[in-house]
């Protein structure tokens, strides 16, 4: 294993006024530069874990916590959110929950975190312009964030996390309001950042995307880790899939083709190899 940038040790969390632990004895490590996906049914603890990784637990959400999380060597519990923000950044599931509600324009919203960090005005203006271009929101920088469509707010939310240049990006189902090609566009940007060495931790229900992007996939069920493995090993294992997770359509196609005896190779989890395989079956 390469350099570990994030380590979770025996981590448990229970929200106030609830009986069940939202997270139950989690142990895992994430390697620098990897693309690490977290999947599981609603209520399995994915968003809670994201909140814990960036320090919103225990600094913002109250509950009973045990165990430790280290981000780039910083113990989350003992570090301030400001200290953590240059290491790890979260794009929220609901972009409206991420807005500062103090900014009058998208430009101010994007600059909000940098302002808190005390960055010089000139530098801020440059960074805002760069991120607005990257997220394709240049045309709305002077609009009020509350007047935007869901998809536009989601782009602004992405931008305001990217602008902080964290070494680890945590994405919590963050393209649910974007149209299919718009969300692909965002993931192309994420992949580009990942190739430049940024570590990505992503929660998503789109199994095709998970299979395409992930080096490692972690499956959660009722707050516990069921498995951590490569997409092929996860989606190809019926026992793991039984934990209320879906599989990419490609896996279903491959499994049917194998059942019928049209091919006897291992399953594919992504689009291009599946197309090639189907072409072969058609010829065969």
């Amino acid at each position, binding site marked *: 294993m390469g350099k570990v940038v994030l380590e979770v040790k025996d981590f448990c969390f229970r929200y106030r*006024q609830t009986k069940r632990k939202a997270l139950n004895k989690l142990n895992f490590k994430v390697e620098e530069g990897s693309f690490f996906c977290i999947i*599981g*049914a*609603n*209520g399995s603890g994915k*968003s809670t874990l994201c909140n814990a990784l960036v320090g919103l637990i225990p600094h913002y959400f109250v509950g009973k916590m045990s165990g430790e999380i280290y981000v780039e060597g910083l113990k989350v519990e003992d570090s301030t959110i400001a200290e953590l923000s240059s290491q790890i950044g979260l794009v929220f*599931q*609901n972009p*409206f929950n991420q807005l500062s509600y103090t900014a009058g324009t998208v430009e101010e919203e994007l600059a909000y975190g940098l302002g808190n960090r005390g960055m010089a005005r000139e530098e801020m203006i440059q960074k805002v312009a760069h991120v607005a271009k990257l997220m394709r929101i240049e045309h709305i920088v002077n609009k009020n964030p509350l*007047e935007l*469509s*869901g*998809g*536009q707010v989601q782009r602004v939310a992405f931008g305001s996390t990217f602008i902080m240049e964290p070494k680890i990006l945590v994405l919590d*189902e963050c393209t*649910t*309001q*974007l*149209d*299919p*090609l*718009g*969300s*692909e566009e965002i993931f192309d940007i994420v992949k580009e950042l990942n190739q430049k060495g940024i570590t990505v931790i992503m929660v998503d*229900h789109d199994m*095709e995307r998970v299979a395409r992007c992930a080096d490692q996939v972690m499956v959660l069920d009722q707050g516990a880790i069921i498995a951590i493995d490569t997409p092929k090993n996860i989606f190809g294992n019926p026992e793991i899939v039984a934990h*209320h*997770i*879906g599989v*990419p*359509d*490609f896996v*279903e*196609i491959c499994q*049917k*083709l194998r059942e*019928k005896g*049209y091919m006897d190779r291992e399953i594919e989890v992504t*689009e291009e190899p*599946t*197309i090639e395989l*189907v*072409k072969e*079956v*058609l010829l065969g």
Partner: protein
Amino acid sequence: MKIELRKLRHVYPTGDEALKGIDLVIEGTEPVAIIGQNGAGKTTVVKHFNGILRPTSGEMLINDENICNKTTAQCSKLVGYVFQNPDDQLFLESVRKEFEFGPRQIGMQENEINERIKMVSEMVGLQDKLELHPFDLTSTEKKFCTIGAIIMMNPSVVIFDEPTCGQDVEGNQRLRSIIDTLQKEGKLCITISHDMKFVVHNFKRVIVMCKGNVLLDGDTEYVFSQVDTIKKSFVTPPPITRVAQKAGLEKTVFTTDAFMQVIESYRKER
């Protein structure tokens, strides 16, 4: 039930022309999906169906009657709109109160309200959470709470705006069963969605919007066979359909079973 739009235009106070003269008829009880890129006008168009928004020009008719002079309250007896963002809709301190609020506004009798609470809460899976504060629900339960609150009013038309946002396998199955149940009760469901798998598995008619106009409107198979046209609206067919198309199969398929049938018949022919 018949919804009809005639040359409907909508210009927002900011000057943005969101709808550029739409002609559209939706009739009967067959569920309809509306898809298309962000900013295409999907939400703007459905917000006209119950008078939340008013046309800048053109007409909006329900059952051949122009609703332009009716209040949103009058329209909402007929057409219910489930908001995209649950936090825009929920404002009371318990799920039960959310469920009671709408029906009381339209003058529904208390005994009917109570009967409906039982039926609707089971339909949306919140029968054990009626006394909870909506803020204590998970994000998906919140969504089902907003859906329940609208169905409570027993409208003839239910509009879902992005109901699949953040739903897992089970959530999608529940949505499917809600739409099925409503259709059996003779109601018309209109759904905006970016989730193409959900769209092809649940809807026979799909309307594709692009830049304030209707780009395509028809049978689901027809719509998703027009790959180049739908791309203009930032939409791609679902994965299984793409594999079939790119592997050179001529038929547009949406399920593994249909996919396998095409493969088998292809192999037999050879």
